[in-house]
């Protein structure tokens, strides 16, 4: 047993494993890059870079490969065991150890970002105020009781619990606060409503599945659902579609409930009001030189005027707002709209620190090597003289 453990330790800490991991990372980086010519970046990220395994279509031949997520975990283990713990520790290796530590910090930061960051968008018209941002790709089902007035409590089913339901698999969701179970039957990542062939479907309508678009941020999800009252009685069938103007409505035990499919939403601890949007072109051309938004940030009753522009985001309370888009859509009365990418990333500053540590480690190591080389050359010159 001890021998097996020792061999496992040796393997996990070995330079050979490091080489294998780095080689696979290079291969997947190349394949994932080329794949972007055929499919959307989001899909490539999901399949190649955020997966444990990937099957690459190599001219019709399926080629199973480890995914980048798996490789990065192995790399972290290899770095800790081989590059920090087992490595010979003397004055010649300090630089290498520091460098490995920097890479580990970078990997840890990436892991934190992947697991705990929030990323979405906030679009405002001039004069409009908002305190909620929505994901581009993640979806959620929100259930609320329809009331004429007063606060409304929403029950939210996060997308990861239902978006992968395929091949006849269903899932049921409920809560003590609601008098029914919501059964989600079929989910489409991209679809649009249309008349059901043969007059079936829900009220003659159905969801028509569409292939994923090149820009997956424009895909609209949909689902077939059924409301099953806990008090008994037949299910109420319904369709949910991400772009529906009004949510599905169902009356259970005399109370009216709304059920809707939305892009995932997050609340900001402050509000943003778009005062003015400006776009500047290079003179005589249609090329944007800059675009910027003047906003009023209000937090705890205190308001402050801030400018957000390309390369100059707004950082507030752990959130960062970036200028990412603009337009003058007719749907908003021809007023300027400004779109901000909103990110909450607990590891926001980690790349910079890891960069400094890695650079320091490499600089130390290579400087030592250079000095040793010059000394040995000088010694050789002395000997030959």
């Amino acid at each position, binding site marked *: 047993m001890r021998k097996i453990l020792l061999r496992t330790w040796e393997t996990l800490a070995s330079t050979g494993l490091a080489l294998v991991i780095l080689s696979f990372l290079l291969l997947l980086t190349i394949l994932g890059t080329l794949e972007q010519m055929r499919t959307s970046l989001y899909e490539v990220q999901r399949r190649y870079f955020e997966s444990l395994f990937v099957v690459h279509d190599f001219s019709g031949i399926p080629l199973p490969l480890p995914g980048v997520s798996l490789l990065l975990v192995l790399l972290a283990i290899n770095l800790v065991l081989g590059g920090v713990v087992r490595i010979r520790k003397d004055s010649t290796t300090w630089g290498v150890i520091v460098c490995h530590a920097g890479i580990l910090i970078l990997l840890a930061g990436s892991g934190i970002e992947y697991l705990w960051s929030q990323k979405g968008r906030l679009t405002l018209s001039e004069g409009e105020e908002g305190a909620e941002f929505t994901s581009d790709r993640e979806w959620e089902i929100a259930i609320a009781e329809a009331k004429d007035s007063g606060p409304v409590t929403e029950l939210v089913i996060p997308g990861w619990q239902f978006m992968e339901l395929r091949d006849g698999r269903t899932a049921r969701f409920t809560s003590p606060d609601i008098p029914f179970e919501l059964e989600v039957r079929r989910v489409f990542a991209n679809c649009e409503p249309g008349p059901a062939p043969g007059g079936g479907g829900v009220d003659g309508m159905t969801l028509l599945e569409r292939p994923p678009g090149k820009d997956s941020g424009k895909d609209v999800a949909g689902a077939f659902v059924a409301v099953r009252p806990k008090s008994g009685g037949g299910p109420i069938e319904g369709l949910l579609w991400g772009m529906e103007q009004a949510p599905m409505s169902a009356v259970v035990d005399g109370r009216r409930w709304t059920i809707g499919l939305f892009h995932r939403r997050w609340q900001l601890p402050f509000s943003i009001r778009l005062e003015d949007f400006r776009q500047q072109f290079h003179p005589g051309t249609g090329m944007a030189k800059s675009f910027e938004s003047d906003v009023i940030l209000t937090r705890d009753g205190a308001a402050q005027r801030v400018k957000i522009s*390309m390369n100059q985001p707004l950082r507030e309370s752990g959130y960062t707002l970036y200028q990412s888009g603009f337009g003058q859509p007719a749907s908003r009365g021809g007023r300027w709209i400004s779109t901000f990418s909103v990110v909450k990333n607990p590891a926001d500053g980690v790349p910079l620190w890891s960069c400094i540590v890695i650079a320091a480690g490499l600089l130390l190591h290579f400087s030592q090597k250079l000095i040793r080389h010059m000394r040995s050359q000088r010694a050789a010159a002395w000997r030959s003289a």
Partner: protein
Amino acid sequence: MKRILACVAIVAAAAGSSPGEEGAERLQAPMRTHVRWSPELVDLFARLPVQDGGRVKPLSTFANFTLLALNGRRGCATPGGEQLTPTEWLMDCFFYTEEAVHYPCFLIQDAGVLDGLGLGHEGKQRRDRYSYADLEPAREKLFGLGAQYEGIDARRRNPVQAQVVNLARNVSQFEKLAGFLSVLGSMPDAAESRAIAAVFGAEARPGLAEILGKAGELKPWLEGTPDDPHGPGGTPGSDPLAAWARSFSMGARGIALFPPLASAPPHAAWLRVGDLVDDTLFRGAALPDQLAALADLEAMLRLRDDRAGFAARAESFRGRVVAAAGQRGEYAKIPLEAAFYRANLFTWAQAAYAIGFVLAAFAWFRTGKALPRLSLGSVIVATLLLAIGITLRCVIRGRPPVTTLYESVLFATGISVVVSLAAEFLHRQGIALALATVLGAAGLLLADRYELQEGVDTMPSLVAVLDTNFWLASHVTTVTIGYGAGLLAGAIGHVTILGRLFGLKRHDEGFYKSLASMTYGVLCFGLLFSVVGTVLGGIWANESWGRFWGWDPKENGALAIVLWKLIVLHALYGGYIREQGLAISSVFCAVVVAASWWGVNLLGVGLHSYGFTSGILLALFGYFAVEALVIVAGVAWGVANQPVDDRPSPAA
């Protein structure tokens, strides 16, 4: 139809010749008949400021890149064989349009384009140059096909379609330039326009500047007044002057030669002749300085064969434009830019690298220190010229050294040469010095070819995301240093592989150890900058787009370089490769650098759209093929000459 033909007649008329028959005859007389422009006049025009592509630049720069796009080279021959500089060519387009239409300044790569247009090409090469007059009969068809092929994704166009699109753009651009001054002789006179007769007198034939100078008096004739909504001429806009002004202001506008008012915002667009018509006649703007400059321009056209008179008005025009541009703070760098291009620093540097290579090559076969020292001197001079050129570009643009692919070639070349010289200082084998000459000459040749092929201003305005000197100076510069080092490592790898293959210093293992040591050092140097540059790129992306890493092709390219350098160094550390393996890996490193630097720009996907390019696929694949041969040769030599200790024993 036949827009330029009409324009030719107009220009001839404005210059004092009678239009019609004579104009047509001059069209058929292709020889350049006028006296060559004096160097002083050419220099005056070269330093004229114009606004193009979002920035103010010397007219010589504008002429240079316009002709490059049309003709594929920085010059143009007249039908009589006279060689013109770009500025001379542009002056001819302005003032002797009827002759310029016969200059063969349109490069057509494949005569199949002409077949498609129904034009003959007897007596021409498959790749040859044609004049506007040659192409004009198929103008309508060319524009029709051009518009049709524009609708096809650029990556899916076949070579002929791509050339048709390009040719249509070039012909359109030429028409804008050659028809630029047509307006100055095309206005209606008093006999045609009651408005002009009423304001200037019954016999008057006023120039455009005079007409625009009396815009206030003419306005009622064009638009009517509150008291007399039909205007003195009856129906508003019925006067031929109104029709002319409207058609002109919507049509040919030429180039932006007139600075706006000093009080205009800093990023206000400069004015074209059409804008002057628009702003004065229809918007009621008072532009006295611009109209005075316009009067000079008109006089230049009138006096084109009276060179003394022409020069006086040209000087006056330049004085007005420069003063107005100076007031706006837009002239200060114009003389420097004109001087920079005139100095041709990179061509001289290329020549000095070539001389350095010849000297280094001779030094290999002769003992003594004179030749190596001369070679070193030559490389130092070349590198200084390159450094001065890069610095001047930084000063002119107010930007760090690398903002475009073109500039990245210059900078990576400089870096690879400087690192080579450092390696030569450490190893003193003469190899790194020779490599410095090769890399310097090859890098500058590549920059030159790329500039020729693209035919666009290499100091362009930057898109919003690149408008940050901090990140351009940190991320872009460090990544480019990584490119330069990767290419140098590859070059040393070539020397090792080819040297062993051809028996260079066969019995001097120290020589190859020294090469391996150099390769290792350069790879380490490159890794440091590649890693730092790549991470800094992620931090910039986080500042601009809100994410550190998005697996975008350009980001992946940078990561691939880092990964390969890490693989090589770890393989060396783990004893998986030795000298020959290091050399082969370094050659592949250069392949990865080329794919990352140039290849990903061909994919046309991702957020780094400002770096997309095309037309280099064949060259890139050719490079990959050559490197594949070198790698195969290196592997073959390695297998054949495996150390005895490493060979499997018969028992195994």
